[in-house]
C-alpha cells in the first residue's frame, strides 16, 4: 500500500509565501494569547499553591462543592469538574501554601462533608511552596536552555562538519548568557538573548542548516506555548517534558529532510537548480515524514482519549507539537536553508 505516490512532486517551496503568512498568523495569535493571559498560565508546580482532587460515590454538583468550601477562606479558589463521564471527581485549587497548606486535605474533606453530607475520597493532594515553585521554574528554563545548547552544537557540527565553528557558537551562546546574567535579567530574556546570539552567528558563519533547524525549533515551541496559552491550559512540569520532547521530535523530522538535501546536492555544481532540488528532497522524504507523524499521532490520540485526566494536557501538548513540527520541517526549516543558500550565490 502507498499513501504517497512515488512520482509525486508537489511544489512545496512555491507555497512558502503562503506558509510564511500562516506561520506569521500562528505566531501573532500566540503573542496575542500570551499578552491577553499575561504570560503562560503557570500551574501549581511553578506558581506555587495547592490542589486537592476529591471523588464522590454519588452525584454531587460543582456548585455544592464550591459552596461548602466558601467558609474555608481559600485564596483564588477554583473548583473544576474532573475526569470523564460519571466519575464525580473534582479538582480544587487554591493559591494557599505553606503552613496553611498543612492539613488542607483534611480541612477540605471536612468542609465538603459538612456542606454536602457526603464524605469525599481524597484522591490526590499537591502543595508547592512559592520558593519551590520559583526553583522549579528556574530549573525548567535551564533544561530548555541546555537542550538548545547541546542541540545547537550537534546540528551545526553534524551537518556542516564544522565542529570548531559549532564549538565557537556554543561558546558565544554561553558567553551571552554569562554577560546577561551579570545584569541579573530574568531567565526568559536570558534564553532569548542566547538564541539571538546563536542565530546571528549561524548567519555570519553561514551555518545554514543549523540556522534553519533552529528557527523551526523556536517556531514550534513558541506556537505550542501560544496554543496552550490560548486554551488557558496549565503549564506544569510534564508540559516542560513535552516541550523538550517536541524539540527533539521536530528536529528529527527536519534532519531527515536535510539529510536528503545534502545527499542530492552532492556533485551538484549548478546552483540555479537548487529550488527544484530542495523540493525534490522534500517530496522524496514526504511519505516517511507523514507516516511517522501518523503513527505517532495514533498513539498520542489513544493517550489523549484513554489515558486519563492527569496525562491529558501532556498528550495535548505532544499532539500540537507533532503537527506543528511536521509542518515546520517542510514549510519553515527547508525554505530558510534555501533562502540562505541562494543568498550565498548572489552575495
Amino acid at each position, binding site marked *: *500500500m502507498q499513501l504517497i505516490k*512515488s512520482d509525486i512532486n508537489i511544489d512545496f517551496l512555491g507555497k512558502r509565501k503562503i506558509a510564511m503568512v500562516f506561520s506569521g498568523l500562528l505566531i501573532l495569535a500566540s503573542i496575542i494569547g500570551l499578552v491577553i493571559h499575561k504570560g503562560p498560565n503557570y500551574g501549581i508546580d511553578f506558581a506555587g499553591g495547592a490542589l486537592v482532587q476529591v*471523588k464522590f460515590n454519588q452525584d454531587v454538583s460543582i456548585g455544592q462543592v464550591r459552596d461548602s468550601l466558601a467558609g474555608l477562606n481559600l485564596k483564588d479558589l477554583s473548583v473544576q469538574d474532573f475526569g470523564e463521564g460519571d466519575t464525580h471527581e473534582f479538582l480544587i485549587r487554591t493559591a494557599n501554601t505553606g503552613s496553611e497548606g*498543612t492539613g488542607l*486535605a*483534611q480541612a477540605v474533606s471536612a468542609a465538603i462533608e459538612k456542606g454536602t453530607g457526603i464524605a469525599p*475520597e*481524597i*484522591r*490526590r*493532594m*499537591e*502543595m*508547592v*511552596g512559592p*520558593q*519551590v515553585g520559583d526553583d522549579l521554574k528556574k*530549573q*525548567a528554563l535551564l*533544561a530548555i536552555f*541546555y*537542550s538548545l545548547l*547541546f*542541540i545547537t552544537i*550537534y*546540528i551545526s557540527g*553534524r551537518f556542516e562538519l564544522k565542529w570548531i565553528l559549532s564549538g565557537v557558537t556554543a561558546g558565544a551562546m554561553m558567553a551571552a548568557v554569562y554577560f546577561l546574567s551579570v545584569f541579573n535579567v530574568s531567565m526568559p530574556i536570558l534564553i532569548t538573548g542566547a538564541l539571538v546570539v546563536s542565530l546571528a552567528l549561524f548567519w555570519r558563519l553561514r551555518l545554514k542548516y543549523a540556522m534553519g533547524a533552529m528557527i523551526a525549533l523556536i517556531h514550534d515551541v513558541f506556537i505550542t506555548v501560544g496554543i496552550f496559552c490560548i486554551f488557558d491550559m496549565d503549564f506544569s*512540569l*510534564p508540559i*516542560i*517534558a513535552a516541550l*523538550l*520532547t517536541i*524539540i*527533539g*521530535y521536530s*528536529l*528529527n*523530522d527536519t*534532519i*531527515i529532510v536535510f*539529510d536528503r538535501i545534502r545527499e542530492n546536492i552532492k556533485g551538484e555544481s549548478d546552483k540555479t537548480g537548487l529550488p527544484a532540488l530542495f523540493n525534490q528532497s522534500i517530496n522524496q*522524504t514526504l*511519505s*516517511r515524514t507523514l*507516516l*511517522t507523524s501518523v*503513527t*505517532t499521532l*495514533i*498513539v498520542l490520540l*489513544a*493517550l489523549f*482519549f484513554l*489515558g*486519563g485526566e*492527569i*496525562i491529558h494536557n501532556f*498528550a495535548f501538548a*505532544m499532539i500540537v507539537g507533532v503537527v506543528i513540527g511536521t509542518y515546520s520541517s517542510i514549510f519553515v526549516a527547508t525554505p530558510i536553508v534555501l533562502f540562505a543558500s541562494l543568498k550565498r550565490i548572489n552575495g
Partner: protein
Amino acid sequence: MKLLTLKHGLVLIVILAAIIWLLPTFTNTWPHKKINLGLDLQGGMHLVLEVQNIKAVEAELERTADEIKKELRQDNILHQGVSRQGNMLVAQLPDQESKAAFEQIISKEFSNLKVTSAGVQDGSIGFQLKLPEDEMDMIRKMATDQALETIRNRIDEFGVSEPDIRIQGKNRILLQLPGINDPDRAKDLIGKTAQLTFQLVDEDAGIDAALKGNLPVGSMLLYEKRTDPATGNTTEIPHVIKKQVLLDGSLLVNARVEFDQFQQPQVGIEFNRKGAHIFDRITGENIKKRLAIILDNTVYSAPVIQDRIAGGKAVITGNFTMNEAKDLAIALRAGSLPAPVTIIEERTVGPTLGADSIRMGMISMLVGGVLILLFMTIYYRKSGLIANLALILNIILIGGGLAAFQATLTLPGIAGIILTIGMAVDANVIIYERIREELRWGKTAAAAVHAGFDRAALTILDANVTTLIAAIVLFQFGTGPVKGFAVTLGLGIVASLFTALVLSRSIFDLVLQKKTTSSLSI
C-alpha cells in the same frame, strides 16, 4: 549458508536477558527484582521539608550567651545584659574595668567569637559578637544532617516499607513514602520538633496581668490545649512559665505508651542516669510547686510536685488519642529535631488513583499499540510483520531495561513508552521507504534491502540523537515523574535503534538467504 552468526547470537542473548529481567514483574517467581512503580502509580507521599537551620544557629548563640553570663557571674564581673539579637550577640558593660575583663574572657574561653564592633553608647560599652561564617555554615549543615537522621528514625518506627529519605541542596530533605494510608498523621509525626522541656510555673505572676502583656522578666506565656472528649471543642489555658529550662528531652532513654487508671493513654518517659539525677534534684527542691511539661512550646500538663521523684521516670498526660500517644512516644524516642522543619512541597497520591492511572495507561498503550500493528501490516504487508516484531521486542526491551537498571516507572513514563511505540516504527519506516525507492530503481530484493539499510542507518542515528539529547537533559534536571519519562524515552530510543538496525536487518538477511526470487513483500 550460515544461519546463526555471531550477530544473531548476540541479538538472541539481548532479547533473552530482557525477558528474564522482565518476567518477575508478572510472575513473581524469578530472583530478580520487579519494575519499580513511582509514587504516582502505587500511591504514596512525596515531601520536601525545609530545615529552618538558622534556628539552630540562633539556639547555639543563645547557649553561648548563657555560658558567657555564667562566666561573668563566676568572675564577679558586672554587666548590663548579654543577649542574642538576630544572628549576633550583644553585650553591654558598665565601665572600662569590666570591659577589659570581658575581653579577656572572650579571648580565653570564646575565642571562636569575632568582635565586630565595640563602642560607647549611653554611658555603657556595647559589644557586638559574631560567629565566623564557616562555623555558622557548619552548624547549619549539622542541623540538616541531624534532622535527616531524626526523621529517618521516626519513619522507621512509624513503619513505612522502602522509604527514600535524602538531603536535597543545603537545607532541604526529600522524602518519598510509598503506600501511606494516613498522610496527615505521617506529616504530623515528621514535622513535630519534639523539643521536650521541664520548666517551673511562675506562681507569683498573675495570669490576667500576663495576658495584658505585663510579663515578669524571665517568664513567658504558654498555652495548654484541652479538648473536651464529649463535644470535641478545644480550649486554650494560659500559663506563665519561667524561661529557665530545668531538664530537657536530650537525656531521655525511653518513651512508651502507658495507660492511666481510667485506661486513657499517656506517654511514660524514662531518663538516663544523669537525667534521673537532675529530675531527682529538681523535684526535691521544688516540692509543692508546679512543674510544667512543655513540648514544642505547648504545655502538656503542669502538675504540683508532691514529693521527690527518684528513679527518673515521669509521665506526660494530655488527653491523647491512642495514635497521638504512639506518635509522641516515637518522636520522643527518635529525638528532637535540631531545628523546626516546614513542609514546602507535598504530593500525595491515593492508592485508588494510582491503580486507575496504571489501568488507563495500559489501555491506551494497548489500543495505540494494536492500531500501529494493524497499520504497519496493512501498509507494508509481510515486511510490516517484521517491523511489528521489532516493535513488540522494543517494548520488551524497555521493560527489561527498566527492571535491570531498577529505574522507576511513572505515569509520564508510561506516556513515554506509548510515545516510543509511535516513534519506534519511524526507523523501520525510513528503511522501508528507502528499500521501496531502491526497488523502483530496479535493484534486486537483496541489493535493495542492503542499500536501504546502509543508506538509512546514518539518517536514523542523526534523527534519534536529538531526541536522546532532550531525554538526557530531562533526566538531569527532572525529578520524580518527569525523570521517569526521560528514562523510558531514552531507553525507548536505544531499544528502537537496536531493533531497527540490528534485529530487523538480521531477520531480512535470514529471509532473503532462503529466497531465490527477487520479489519482496514491502
